[in-house]
């Protein structure tokens, strides 16, 4: 009896001593280190970066007030040497957790971002973010509203800008590069001061600018066939039925031996729910367009 008592109590004593050591150790792990100055309250811990996908592997994030891009789905990140606010400056009131659509390029070959404060610049990298170069697109600094950058190939690219808006009038222009974005020349402009809706090039010669954002009544659509040196207003043959229905031209695209473009109903359209578009085709490089068919919202090419 006595023997058992002492064996049990000694065993308990030994285990408890070990437990105390363990307990103290677990506390030490969790107690605040006295040497580290507590971070200021406002400073939040950097959250792990979550890519906003552009393709299945390529993405970017604007977390922590910097622009980081990834080419491997968030495993490795490259910080773009750009101030995040400069990507959004101008007449933009949307959210700043995602980049403005069309204001950047992120693809296997290249990454390019437009900054719209001061002289408008394009910050670009052709080697997955290892080196960056900055080129000036436009020396002046209007308050930019519409912005778009796109490249058709390694060399040829364009930037469309608009700004200095007063009511429904604004300045807009298109800038073209033939050397992969090192230098830009300002193309001539169609001479309209309506608000620009969109613009694009289908090849190095043929490009389009589409105007009319507020209450458009018919497409205001210009075409160049000489890489922006001269512009002509394109004419649409719109069936009576679709008059004042299909009013704003979107981006034309190549289709077989001709060009095609979709005309949408603008912001106030209510024909068949307002989402149906009209498809027009052109056989003369975009100068004249004739109606082809109606396109349901989910049938778009």
């Amino acid at each position, binding site marked *: 009896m006595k023997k058992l008592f002492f064996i049990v109590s000694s065993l*308990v004593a030994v*285990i408890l001593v070990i437990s*105390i050591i363990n307990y103290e150790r677990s506390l030490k792990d969790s107690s605040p280190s006295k040497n580290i100055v507590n971070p200021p309250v406002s400073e939040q811990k950097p959250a792990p970066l979550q890519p906003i996908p552009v393709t299945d592997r390529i993405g970017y994030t604007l977390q922590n007030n910097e622009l980081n891009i990834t080419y491997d789905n968030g495993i490795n990140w490259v910080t773009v040497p750009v101030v995040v606010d400069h990507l959004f400056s101008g007449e933009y009131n949307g959210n700043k957790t995602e980049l403005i659509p069309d204001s950047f390029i992120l693809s296997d070959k290249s990454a390019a971002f437009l900054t719209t404060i001061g002289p408008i610049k394009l910050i670009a990298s052709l080697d997955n973010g290892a080196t960056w170069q900055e080129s000036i697109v436009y020396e002046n600094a209007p308050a930019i509203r519409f912005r778009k950058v796109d490249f058709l190939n390694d060399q040829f690219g364009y930037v469309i800008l608009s700004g200095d808006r007063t009511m429904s009038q604004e300045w807009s222009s298109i800038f073209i590069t033939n050397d992969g974005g090192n230098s830009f020349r300002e193309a001539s402009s169609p001479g309209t001061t309506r608000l620009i809706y969109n613009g694009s090039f289908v090849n190095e010669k043929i490009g389009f600018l589409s105007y009319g954002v507020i209450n458009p009544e018919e497409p205001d659509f210009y075409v160049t066939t000489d890489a922006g040196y001269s512009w002509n207003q394109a004419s649409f043959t719109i069936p009576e039925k679709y008059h004042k229905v299909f009013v704003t031209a979107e981006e034309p695209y190549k289709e077989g031996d001709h060009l095609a473009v979709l005309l949408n109903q603008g912001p106030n359209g209510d024909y068949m729910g307002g989402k149906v578009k009209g498809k027009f085709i052109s056989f003369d490089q975009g100068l004249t367009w004739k109606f082809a068919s109606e396109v349901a919202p989910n049938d778009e090419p």
Partner: protein
Amino acid sequence: MTNRKKLVGLILFVMAIGLFLLQMIYFYLHAKFFVEYSDNRLFYVFNIAIALLFGLSMIVLFNMKRTAKIISIFMLLLFILINSTLIFKHPIPQIVSVSPDFKNIFVVKEIRGEARYYRTYYGIFARQKETLLYHLKGEYKINWVTNDVAALTYKAMDDSLHQFIGTYGDRGSGISYYYVGSALYGEWKGSNSSISTHTEGITVNHGGSKETFNWDQIVQFGTLAVVLVDDHEAKWIIALNDDFIMDSGSGIGVAGTISLFQASMEHKEILILKR
């Protein structure tokens, strides 16, 4: 040795073993479910209790030689001394407060620079529930507004004043969530103060001065309390008292009282308001 003495000794011995097993269960729960003692120092208290129980049962059960007795008692005292030292030199700041009716325990521990709020189980165990938004500077006070609403008022590192409310009950059916703000809809009056809850927010009228808090300045805790915040600092807490009766159809309080309590490091009285 009388039988009675033997029985007492055995009971003490069994109690010691029981407490010892509790400590072992704790280690198991800690490893598996991150359970902690609600007060970390309970661990040492239990150790001391185990030592005392063993010592007592030893004295009661056995007639030992003088030297053996001295050695055993010396060992026990040493063990107790070590545990007592660890109690007083405990490295983790803890806030532990028991409600006036001894039914609920409010526990906040500061671990790795974070103030963590714990839910207790069976009084002695606790698990982390959430992390407080701000890091405690050290100054704090706890008020039990009702038996199941504890208000922790504390200064953050930037000297701003904050409140965290631990709630341990419910005034509805207990099965569904409801908004305290909408339960407060309408007028509530006390002797020197009143609140009015309307579509824009809550207006607090106290001692002649009026202040309106928009809904985005109102932070709900559990289903019992809201904190009214201005410029990221806590100003008032409103809690539903035990006698608060809610119309289950509309989710609006129809009878009973609520507590209005000013956030301050100084002593403030809890103001009782009624319909």
